């Protein structure tokens, strides 16, 4: 009897947690209003969350572009097909690497900082103070950060991909001496706007939503202690990463 109940608890635990998370999302969304205060708050968070992730995203994007070109040329050379490199890089970037890598990097850099910030506010009673002033902390603290994340991730993905292509240009054309004209024409003709580019944008929107929701939820539900906040930030990265990859598969199978 005892063994049964722990198994049930193990199963129902995460399920009810997921349910709470969904309710949290609905509670946040119900507070969206085009008020100057809220817009300003979202803008401020966009800066703190998005703009401050920019540098790491751009650096990583550039190097991913370069290494991808390196690997691609290595492989394609054997078939005498080196000039297909831009096509390979472009397609894999738009469809997979851009959205997924950007989202993972975002989860690590911005997701953890969101969770830590909210968790700390909870541990120092700031959220409680807001409630007592009849301010809903979910809408004052969590919502702007959530929206900022959803806005930032697609933009960051675009910048990641742009810099990756730049990296590819530098490596393939600059270092390996491929013809620039062929590079761009293969890229422009082979990468499909509807399928590859738009599909990638959808992915980055979904990923942005996932990472932002997980980050604000775990911050809000963290245990109000130092250890609690630490656990919450770890959970944010772990769960975000897993969900990103799971949803990547789901979306890829019906987008492509």
């Amino acid at each position, binding site marked *: 009897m005892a063994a049964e109940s722990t198994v049930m608890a193990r199963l129902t635990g995460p399920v009810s947690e997921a349910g709470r998370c969904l309710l949290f999302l609905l509670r946040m969304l119900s507070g969206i209003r085009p008020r100057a205060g809220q817009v300003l708050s979202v803008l401020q968070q966009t800066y703190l969350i998005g703009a401050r992730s920019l540098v790491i995203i751009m650096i990583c994007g550039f190097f991913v572009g370069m290494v991808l070109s390196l690997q691609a040329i290595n492989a394609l050379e054997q078939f005498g097909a080196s000039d297909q490199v831009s096509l390979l890089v472009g397609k894999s970037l738009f469809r997979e690497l851009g959205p997924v890598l950007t989202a993972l990097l975002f989860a690590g850099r911005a997701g953890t900082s969101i969770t830590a910030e909210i968790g700390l506010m909870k541990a120092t*009673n700031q959220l409680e*103070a807001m409630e007592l002033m*009849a301010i809903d902390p979910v809408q004052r603290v969590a919502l702007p950060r959530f929206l900022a994340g959803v806005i930032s991730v697609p933009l960051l993905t675009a910048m990641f991909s742009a810099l990756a292509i730049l990296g590819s240009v530098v490596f393939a054309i600059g270092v390996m001496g491929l013809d620039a004209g062929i590079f761009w024409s293969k890229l422009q003709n082979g990468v499909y706007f509807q399928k590859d580019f738009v599909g990638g944008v959808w992915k980055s929107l979904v990923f942005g939503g996932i990472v932002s929701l997980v980050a604000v939820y775990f911050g809000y539900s963290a245990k109000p202690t130092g250890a609690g906040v630490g656990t919450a930030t770890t959970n944010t990265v772990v769960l975000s990463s897993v969900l990103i990859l799971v949803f990547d598969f789901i979306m890829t199978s019906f987008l492509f």
Partner: protein
Amino acid sequence: MNIGHASARSNGESIIRIRDLVFRRGRRTILDGINIDIHRGSIVAFMGPSGVGKTTILRLISGQLRPDSGTVEVNGHRVSAMSDRDLQRFRRNIGVLLQDGALFTDLTVFENIATPVREHTDLPEPLVRRLVMSKLAAVGLGGTEERMPHELSGGMARRVAFARAVVLDPDIMLYDEPMTGLDPIAVSTIRTLMRETNDTLGQTSIVVSHNVTQVRQFADYCYIIASARIAGEGPPETLAASSEPSVDQFMNGRVEGPIPFHYQPPGAPWGLLD
């Protein structure tokens, strides 16, 4: 401070009335049949060992928690029966100073104090500014309005939190360990502010504290909570002289007494030789 002083200040009318309050968390009964009367104009202290439920009672009064049974009445209204909208209006009239101040770390001192004003009133910006600056001056911190909370010392931060709590001139004040962690000068400052504001604005204040020495200096009346019940109540001097074992143990800081030294896990008593 003695009974005479208290009743001279208050008109004897009890504006916070708690009857047969029971509150449980999981299997633990935190409060088991609590009865409290708080008279208008007085400063009442809730004392007791750590973790006994003093802060829980504050949360029950402010409506953050609902009791399992019993009633909490403020000015004749049942707090547990209030709708969200009523609670909002109710809280406009309560000032709360939480443990460690709980200032919003991402806002300036000015913005912190201005938050309740902007949230609950429609005052134009110049009036908001005037109100905030006057409260800031009243706690002796004029000129710090653009500082961030982390730039302030403990005592200053506590005073800003105090200013934020009283900015709308509430009738009722709830203080959760307001003097914990402060140096002696800051302690006196907060105590003075508490007393003066209470008397000037005709407030009723409830202070949660476990510092007996400090409580004796400002409280009109005390409730000692131990083992989920009221172990004793009365003006501080009366309690200090009490011969009731729990009260005596607490007021005089004794290790031996009814409040146990050994941790008792819920369920069977624990023994070293089990």
